[in-house]
């Protein structure tokens, strides 16, 4: 353990020295579009098998693809949000291979001329550190269908609902150096996609999946041979899979072996990767330009129009939250992770203490939602009510401690905090006379301790505060109790 303390994140201490990971990610993001990339069929998730399949999707003879303009706009929007070069001319290619859930016998994708070229994004590693990850390209492609192998003892079933659904493949440069960075990168991409509405980012439903290319090397050396881990659908799995794969590679190299370039799958039950197919078995996809589709061409003016529609993106929003609400960079980065967080926060912090609101939202609200397995979207506590609660605290109407009880009640009853405070009589006692009565009682009942305190045992002061608070059932204003106790214990 002491040895590993000197390692940078993503480094592995082997028997022969330190190894560094080199990671590149291919993210497949399903475009939030009502219809598919080249057909009018619905692209919604969860409908009955083979109920959203057009003649084009089923590859009936003579059917032709027609590009969905909305999907092109989303790809351009995403490219702009990734600070990437938009290619005014791009070409659709056919990627040819046979599989039962690929009706055309080819996937329409973009190979040599993608719609978006190089770009870069900034990712937050922790509260202080950021790093830049390069984007290699973004291209549009069709999703394949789904093979169901567990429905019949000898047959496989095919569901073509996903066939032809629009995907963006976002390819990073091999700039990532640790599993945590990879996780942060995916989080950031997901966040950007959700901000601009190009993809719902729902990893459980498969709207966002990643293939991870992993290799290891001596720090600063040439790249090693890489393996690709396919189809990871959670950030946790991405982190686990990369770590386990890098360790596997280090073990092989250190025991004198060589890494075979291959495609691997992550087994979530063992937490390890296993071989899917080697480079020798890789398909020859016979890419060539799809003669059914013209090159995609658009003007700079059109790109500029799309740019106009972009909302404020997380990086800029983070700066604004820090400036306008005085919150810490760390809190701000948490609050801009999701557009809903930001929207909720801005509503909640309206007119009240921003810092306190951020604390309450990140610690109490997120904690409570997680415990109840709820999302912010269906939070029982509205942003307005959270703001009001913060207001009650700031104004001294309730103490922080009471506020926690009020908050718990809000999670259950959805009532406004003022209502709960009123109903339960939880208002803070800030009346001097009321508090003095309690102080008198405590002094009277604790004569010995008063003597000790006056004799120099300063530490006993806390005891008196506690007794008074107890007597008030927590409602006494702690500041006032302090002040009045000091005046009366002389």
């Amino acid at each position, binding site marked *: 353990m002491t040895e590993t303390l000197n390692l940078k994140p993503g480094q592995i201490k082997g028997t022969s020295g330190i190894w560094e990971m080199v990671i590149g990610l291919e993210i497949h993001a399903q475009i939030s579009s009502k219809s598919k990339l080249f057909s009018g069929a619905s692209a919604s998730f969860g409908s009955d098998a083979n109920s959203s399949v057009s003649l084009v999707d089923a590859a009936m003879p003579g059917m*032709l693809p027609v590009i969905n303009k909305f999907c092109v706009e989303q790809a351009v929007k995403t490219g702009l949000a990734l600070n990437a070069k938009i290619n005014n001319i791009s070409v659709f290619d056919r990627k040819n291979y046979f599989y039962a859930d690929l009706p055309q016998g080819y996937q329409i994708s973009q190979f040599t001329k993608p719609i978006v070229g190089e770009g870069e994004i900034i990712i937050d590693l922790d509260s202080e550190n950021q790093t830049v990850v390069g984007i290699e390209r973004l291209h549009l492609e069709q999703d394949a269908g789904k093979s169901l192998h567990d429905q019949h003892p000898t047959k496989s079933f095919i569901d073509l609902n996903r066939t032809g659904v629009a995907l963006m493949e976002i390819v990073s440069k091999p700039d990532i150096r640790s599993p945590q960075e990879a996780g942060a990168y995916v989080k950031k991409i997901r966040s950007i996609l959700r901000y601009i509405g190009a993809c719902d980012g729902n990893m459980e439903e498969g709207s966002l999946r990643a293939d991870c290319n992993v290799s290891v090397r001596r720090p600063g050396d040439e790249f090693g041979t890489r393996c690709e881990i396919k189809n990871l659908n959670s950030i946790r799995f991405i982190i686990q899979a990369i770590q386990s794969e890098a360790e596997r590679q280090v073990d092989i190299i250190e025991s004198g072996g060589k890494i075979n370039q291959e495609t691997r799958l992550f087994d979530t039950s063992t937490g390890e990767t296993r071989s899917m197919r080697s480079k020798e078995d890789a398909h020859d996809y016979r890419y060539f330009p799809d003669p059914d589709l013209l090159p995609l061409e658009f003007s700079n003016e059109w790109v500029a129009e799309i740019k106009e529609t972009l909302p404020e993106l997380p990086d800029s929003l983070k700066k604004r939250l820090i400036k306008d609400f005085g919150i810490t960079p760390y809190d701000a980065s948490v609050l801009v992770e999701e557009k809903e967080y930001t929207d909720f926060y801005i509503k909640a912090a309206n007119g009240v203490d921003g810092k306190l609101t951020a604390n309450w939202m990140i610690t109490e609200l997120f904690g409570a939602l997680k415990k109840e397995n709820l999302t912010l979207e269906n939070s029982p506590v509205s942003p307005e009510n959270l703001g009001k609660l913060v207001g009650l605290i700031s104004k001294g109407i309730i103490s922080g401690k009471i506020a926690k009880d009020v908050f718990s009640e809000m999670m259950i009853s959805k009532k406004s905090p003022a209502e709960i405070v009123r109903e339960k009589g939880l208002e803070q006692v800030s009346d001097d006379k009321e508090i003095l009565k309690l102080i008198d009682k405590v002094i009277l009942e604790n004569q010995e301790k008063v003597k000790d305190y006056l004799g120099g045992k300063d530490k006993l002061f806390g005891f008196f505060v506690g007794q008074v608070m107890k007597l008030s059932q927590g409602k006494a204003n702690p500041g006032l109790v302090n002040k009045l106790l000091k005046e009366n214990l002389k």
Partner: protein
Amino acid sequence: MSDFLKLDLLGASIALKNKEISSVELTNAYINAIEKTSSLGAYLDVQADYALEMANRSDKKIQQGTAGPLEGIPIGVKDMFCTKNIKTTASSKILENFYPTYESTVTQNLWNDGAVMLGKLSCDEFAMGSSNETAAKGNVINPWSKTNPMSPGGSSGGSAAAVAARSALAATGTDTGGSIRQPAAFCGITGLKPTYGRCSRWGIVAFSSSLDQAGPLTRTVSDAALMLNSMAGYDVKDSTSANISMPDLMTYLDNSIKGKKIGIPKEYTQDGISQDIMKFYESSINWLKDSGAEIVPVSLPHTKYALPVYYIIAPAEASSNLARYDGVRYGARNEAATLDEMYELTRGNGFGDEVKRRIMIGTYVLSSGYYDAYYLKAQKVRRLIKEDFENVFKNVDYLLTPSTPTTAFELGQKQDPLTMYLNDIFTVPASLAGVPGISIPVGLDSSGLPVGVQLIANSFDEPGLINVARTLEKCADFNLIPDGAAK
């Protein structure tokens, strides 16, 4: 011969509109003709009842005065066009029981304009062939056959044979490298391949997407103009369809061609071309000259590469286009224990030799390590061939060439695929360039077989093409009917 069969499309159309004949009468005459000529094998599927139902409807429309331009005209449809609820096989075993739930744009356009559907016509399997011999259901016989059965050409062999044999007033075809023009030449009829993009490809079984183009096979140039008027049009469902409107071709038929420049490409009069064809080619040049055109010798220097380029690009696209016939969703399937075996058996049994050959060639030229040397190079040369045409059309209005190097050959005569491919040598360049071409009959050779010549125009100049073709047609005055035609 029945008087009804003597009318060409234009003549029949006028007679119908004048209520001299009814569509039911006309259609019945063609249904009889189909029966009488059934030994030619032109039809794969005859839709007699459906045709009469359509004819009936047409007669009502004519009575009501709401007739379309092709109202009541009985035509045949090449089996490459998907026809709703009517079996569509592309002459392949792999689609032997395929009934589309949709209608191709081109045939829908024809029905919308009043045409009557007689049935589906044979062709080479997936339109791959130049003799109609690759059709799964067997050969089609050229109605001009003498003692031995002759090929009608291909791939639209059924269409050409039916029009020549008077068992369809007109027919649709598709042309990828000459599949309309070459069979039209072999069968002594007119065949027009429009500009690429003029007719929608939606609903036509794809062979080679960057080359496939639908067009009419008819008895006369006027008939071709009438048919194309209805077939052509922009279609949002085909991204490669051209959003360029085509004027009514009938208004261009009889314009003077005085002063028009006709290019005579030197690359099209090579060795191996038959003497008879050369004779009629030279006559055609003189006829156009006599009609006031200026004859200009021109050169299309990359012509010699057209055939090799075509036999890389077309199979490459075909290998991908035909991947969908995998036995999973429709068409024939041979059950097997594994998916790969099912593919092998289904495709092994479902496709004929020529289709397999082209899938193999196409797969090869696209495979990694060979792509640059074959497919990419072929695309570059295709560009040069296209530029040849662009350059030559800066100086001349039309090109005149022979349609084919020989007239029709006997069935089974050309066993070697390469010899067969040479048939398309004069038609392939225009396909690669995407420009329109028309083959019209100009005479009979010494064996009594039709000779065709080809006119080629610049992209989207179908009006001019029709005009010069009609002029040449008048000069040639070819009005012979084959012995194999319905009597």
